[in-house]
């Protein structure tokens, strides 16, 4: 019990420490830097498992930064918490575990993937800063702290997208993403200012307890929803996503996928735990549902006609985020009355959370496979690729698993979460699940195209001497494949032990508030 009490803080301290110490360790040479980065990310993974297990046994973990004792949320009889409090319930500890898996896969893949390029010390320092920002986004329970970690994650992702300095497209992609997310960050700051001006509180749970749905809160909610939906890539504001995901190195894109999921966690935290039942009327749920449906359909219809691998996958990220937004919109719609909630609300919440986790695993693996193709053929254009299956057996096998998972083919985890989303959105209105199904078919169509052009087909002369990617890259991909297979083979265990408590923790606003204002554990 003694040290595991500090787990939430260690989850943030370890990546920060890793980021700051990388240049010092890198004095010991290339191998020392590699071992150090793998060590840091595996320690992070172990910590996240301990945190998951700790939250499962002890209930919501509350951590007061800088307090006399870790659970002293209300010091000396104050009515409301003053310090920055990290609040970890089963929802964000589950996402933190998947985030650490993706970070480990990215580190392993990045060891040999960036061999030919300079500046790898700053690359791994920024990489761990991005991991720290992502984990901060997931674990924090304080509004302003959420803004600070959003900025840390954004600034380090701008730097990492522009990693290949001499490619004009990556600088352009990073600049455009930076411009839009600077405006979004200022809108988040304004929203926090509105809530702070109204209640003099910054702690999410404390604000959640006293919030009514007045004009200032409505404006704050709108700013938060659009800013964070932009960071996840919802339809009208998604145009930066294919650019940024295509131009960043593949080991960075894996982490960018998780950072977009971390801002979706932030969006859920604000909509369910801060506002929760205070949202009256159907405007917000239907706004989320329409955002989701538009993202789904337009994202995938743009993806089918792409002929560049990573840009195609970037558009698929837009459409997959649409599934989750729709699932959470349906959950919010049913939040009002308990009968609907029991009928389809909880299923859609479970579907949304499970799809969020599956999305990180198979989308990360797809981007790593695209990176492997780029490493071997030197190009991202599908027209130039052909017949790589015989020479790259492992990459092909993992690509098939990831493509099957993303298009929702039965045994895999993508299918299970999509099934939950189809059935729950069907109860709201059949058109929702019709759009979701059509999107799924188009996803399958575009990945069949990628598989046929890149892997099958006759051998191309210039790729005759191509051989399998180095072992550490295959290991990086294998980490995510194992996670996908784990989630696919034991769906019942995963849903009942991990997704179910996460959904109840997200929906149950009272427990979230009680953990902090009830004087902690």
């Amino acid at each position, binding site marked *: 019990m003694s040290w595991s009490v500090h787990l939430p803080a260690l989850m943030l301290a370890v990546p920060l420490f890793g980021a700051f110490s990388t240049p010092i360790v890198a004095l010991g040479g290339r191998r020392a830097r590699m071992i150090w980065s793998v060590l840091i990310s595996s320690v992070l993974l172990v910590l996240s498992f301990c945190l998951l297990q700790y939250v499962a046994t002890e209930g919501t973990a509350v951590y007061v930064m800088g307090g006399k004792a870790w659970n002293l949320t209300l010091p000396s009889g104050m009515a409301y918490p003053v310090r920055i409090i990290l609040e970890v319930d089963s929802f964000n500890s589950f996402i933190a575990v998947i985030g650490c898996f993706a970070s480990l896969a990215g580190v392993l893949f990045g060891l040999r993937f960036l061999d030919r390029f300079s500046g790898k010390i700053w690359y791994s320092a920024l990489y761990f800063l991005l991991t720290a920002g992502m984990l901060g986004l997931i674990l924090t329970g304080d509004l302003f702290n959420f803004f600070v970690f959003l900025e840390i994650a954004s600034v380090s992702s701008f730097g990492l997208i522009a990693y290949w300095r001499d490619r004009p497209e990556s600088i352009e992609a990073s600049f455009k993403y930076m411009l839009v997310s600077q405006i*979004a960050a200022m*809108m988040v700051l304004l929203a926090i200012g509105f809530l702070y001006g109204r209640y003099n509180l910054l702690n999410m749970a404390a604000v959640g307890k006293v919030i009514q749905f007045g004009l200032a809160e409505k*404006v704050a909610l709108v700013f938060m929803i*659009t800013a964070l939906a932009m960071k996840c890539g919802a339809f009208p*504001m998604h145009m930066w996503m294919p650019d940024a995901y295509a131009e960043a190195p593949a080991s960075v894109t894996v982490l960018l996928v998780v950072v977009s999921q971390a801002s979706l966690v932030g969006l859920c935290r604000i909509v369910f735990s801060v506002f929760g039942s205070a949202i009256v009327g159907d405007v917000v749920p239907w706004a989320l549902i329409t955002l989701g449906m538009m993202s789904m359909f337009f994202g995938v219809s*743009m993806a*089918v*006609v792409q002929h560049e691998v990573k840009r195609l996958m970037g558009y698929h990220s837009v459409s997959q985020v649409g599934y989750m937004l729709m699932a959470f919109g349906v959950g919010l719609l049913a939040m009002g009355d308990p009968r609907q909630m029991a009928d389809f609300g909880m299923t859609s919440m479970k579907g949304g959370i499970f799809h969020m986790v599956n999305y990180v695993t198979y989308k990360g693996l797809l981007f790593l496979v695209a990176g492997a193709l780029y490493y071997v053929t030197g190009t991202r254009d599908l027209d130039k690729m052909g017949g790589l299956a015989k020479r790259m057996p492992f990459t092909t096998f993992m690509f098939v698993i990831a493509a099957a998972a993303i298009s929702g083919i039965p045994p895999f985890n993508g299918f299970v979460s999509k099934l939950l989303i189809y059935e729950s959105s069907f*109860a709201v209105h059949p058109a929702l699940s019709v759009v979701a199904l059509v999107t799924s078919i188009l996803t399958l169509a575009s990945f069949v195209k990628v598989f046929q052009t890149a892997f099958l087909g006759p051998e191309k002369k210039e790729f005759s001497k191509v051989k399998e990617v180095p072992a550490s890259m295959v290991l990086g991909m294998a980490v995510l494949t194992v996670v996908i297979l784990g989630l696919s083979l034991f769906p019942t265990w995963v849903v009942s032990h991990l997704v179910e408590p996460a959904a109840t923790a997200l929906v149950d606003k009272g427990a979230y508030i009680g953990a902090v204002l009830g004087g902690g554990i």
Partner: protein
Amino acid sequence: MFGSLFTGFGYWDFGSWLLFFILAGAMTTWLRSQGRQDYKKGTEQDQIYFSGNELPDSEEITVPASSSYWGFRKALKPYYDKLVAFHSGQTVTYVGWFLVTTALLMVLIIL
């Protein structure tokens, strides 16, 4: 062994899916084994059947990615022209659509 997952209205059971998959696999392999046995590897039977005439080198016969689903693209030409034009890469559209969505949601929520 895997148990079935209740998905709101039905069940998803990995075990029964596996059973069905093995059954279907057995049937298809049996059906395939009824075919002709005179296939020999490495002979001219391996050549792609190019409707009789001589096989050009592998460059011309690969179906490039930009031409796959050309029918789908041509059928939905008006829709795709507008959609591709919408993604014009202008920075103004990135920022503009973000503000349009905020304004739209603001109007919907306040009224």
